């Protein structure tokens, strides 16, 4: 891990910026030097800030012809050795699924930001939503793990974007940053860290003539040299052997897919991040993430004022799902109230992790309006009544 600072881009001073701008600053601080994207509300400010800042620090920007091409260009640039990202929203995210799967299968590091808006289809382009949580996990064909991070404030967008690049490089995987229109467009005063810890992808030490690109060390992630740096190797989305060459061999294919999972699942301690608030003596826990996590925090404080023992579990990492952490909370509380801006996506995962050890209630809505603290306070009062 190395520490970087970006003198060209002031970070450690109070600034009033949007979530989308914080995302750009986090990406650049983490070492992102390539952006390929396609305009879509409510993510376009990311591209608009990128095109102004990237050239000053040796980076390159391209506006591609669609979101399929955007992520393809990102994968191509990443193979060229540049840390790369794109940003989009629901409809564009649907188009990107093809190359999220490709990046997962070929183990090319990249970051995809999805600023969620109301769906389905063109839906509510300027309204917030959390409707893409399952698409982020299961939108592609085939079996592969994915890392999905969900910040809940402008400051956390910066932190999470840095982490997304670090995890992408560390585990050679696509990482998705998932937040909604409110966080993308809200301006908050933040002071960002002047330096951040940065991880770069491992480089091989083999002789180029003996290099097999898909031979993994025990921790599961093979090194990745850049195209053009002296290692000549093949990259394919077909099932491939350790030499990177296509195969139909069932055992080889199984070993590959198993390793793709293992390299993530064996390192949950590096990946899973969960924020908790006032849980120690709680009878009720609210499970909320992203912007809803902030409403929930306020609702927890108001409910505490009313004498109700309620706390908050707010996953920053949505995938891999923090099942261990949710199960631990379930063993201590009577009720878990899941609030999300969709008609029920992570609540199923919560129920699975809770495994009957607590009652699971849901406050689920998908009308393009945020979930307010007042609404959640009413839900807490209701949950308290049910509990007694």
């Amino acid at each position: 891990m190395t520490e970087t600072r970006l003198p060209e881009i002031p970070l450690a001073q109070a600034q009033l910026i949007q979530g989308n701008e914080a995302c750009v600053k986090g990406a650049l601080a983490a070492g992102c030097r390539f952006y390929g994207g396609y305009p879509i509300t409510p993510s376009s400010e990311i591209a608009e800030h990128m095109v102004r800042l990237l050239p000053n620090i040796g980076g390159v920007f391209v506006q591609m012809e669609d979101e399929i091409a955007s992520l393809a260009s990102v994968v191509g640039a990443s193979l060229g050795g540049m840390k790369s990202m794109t940003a989009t929203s629901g409809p564009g995210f649907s188009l990107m699924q093809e190359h999220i799967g490709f990046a997962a299968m070929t183990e090319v590091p990249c970051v995809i930001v999805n600023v969620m808006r109301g769906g389905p289809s063109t839906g509510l382009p300027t309204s917030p939503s959390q409707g893409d949580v399952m698409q982020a996990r299961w939108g592609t064909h085939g079996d592969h793990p994915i890392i999905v991070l969900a910040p809940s404030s402008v400051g956390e967008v910066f932190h999470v974007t840095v982490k997304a690049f670090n995890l992408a490089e560390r585990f050679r995987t696509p990482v998705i940053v998932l937040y909604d229109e409110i966080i993308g467009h809200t301006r908050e005063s933040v002071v960002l860290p002047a330096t951040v810890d940065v991880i770069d992808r491992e480089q091989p030490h083999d002789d180029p003539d003996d290099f097999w690109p898909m031979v993994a060390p025990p921790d599961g992630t093979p090194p990745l040299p850049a195209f053009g740096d002296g290692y000549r190797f093949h990259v394919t989305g077909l099932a491939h052997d350790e030499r990177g060459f296509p195969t139909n061999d069932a055992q080889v294919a199984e070993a590959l897919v198993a390793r793709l999972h293992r390299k993530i699942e064996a390192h949950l301690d590096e990946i899973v991040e969960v924020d908790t608030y006032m849980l120690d003596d709680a009878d009720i826990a609210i499970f909320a993430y992203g912007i809803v996590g902030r409403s929930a925090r306020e609702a927890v404080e108001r409910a505490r004022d009313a004498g109700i023992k309620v706390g908050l579990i707010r996953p920053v990492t949505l995938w891999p799902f923090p099942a261990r952490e949710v199960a631990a909370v379930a063993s201590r509380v009577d009720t878990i109230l899941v609030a999300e801006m969709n008609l029920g996506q992570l609540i199923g995962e919560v129920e699975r992790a809770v495994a009957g050890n607590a009652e699971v209630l849901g406050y689920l809505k998908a009308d393009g309006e945020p979930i307010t603290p007042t609404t959640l306070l009413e839900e807490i009062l209701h949950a308290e009544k049910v509990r007694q």
Partner: protein
Amino acid sequence: MTDVKSYLREWAMPHVLCPGCAHGIVLRSFLTAVDQLQLDQDKIAMVAGIGCSSRLAGYVDFCTLHGTHGRAPAFATGLKLARPDLNVVVVTGDGDALAIGGNHLIHAARRNIDITVLLLNNSIYGMTGGQAAPTTPEGAIASTTPAGNTEPNFDACKLLIGAGASFVARVLAANPMDMTKVMADGLNHPGFSFIEVISDCPEYFGRYNKVGGGAEMLTWMSVRDEGVSGPLSDKRFVNHIPSSAPPPGLATGVLHNELRPVFSGVRKVGRS
């Protein structure tokens, strides 16, 4: 001259191509051009899509990316922008580049990014078993056009000239020396070079349309190559009447060559 085998991954052989398929001849012509130009083997990246021609990328000892169906120009765009020091070559087929990948191809041409695209046109989808492609001539038999194709086909070179490609050529797999020369010119050209190679698919196109095996198909296309006549796009398929007299077909040779500003993304000028 170096043995072109030094550019091949012999360990990856045998290859997947069918007997009589001309794609191997095309690849040899390309590698000969690479050798003539003495390009640095470490600085060549071949980017492919999905299909028979795209599988060629697996057999060459360069940095090779076998991407997704139709998207090779988009992968190549990102790679070239990140690594201007690389010679980026796209190898693609007619279905890959002109159907599912049409959008990426025309936009790469419009930008005039400095990559070379080899489109191996065999007038059919070979890898998936002989379905009609956007290049399948009207009247021709494919597995999805058992009564003859009712759609008109693309003239890929006209399309690419219209889209802004600054170097456009069409060559025949039957003429390996011409292929090498045009490919070398394309590799040398600053900007977007598009080379359509008329290849063959004896296994599907040849069999379904009774135009013979590989040798017959190469002979057939070369007989037509008398200046203006050409490849498999041919009036006879419209009428289902085999004819020995080739009608005017697609033009071959370098069809368009201009110099215009090369796209390098939004970046600081003077910085590579």
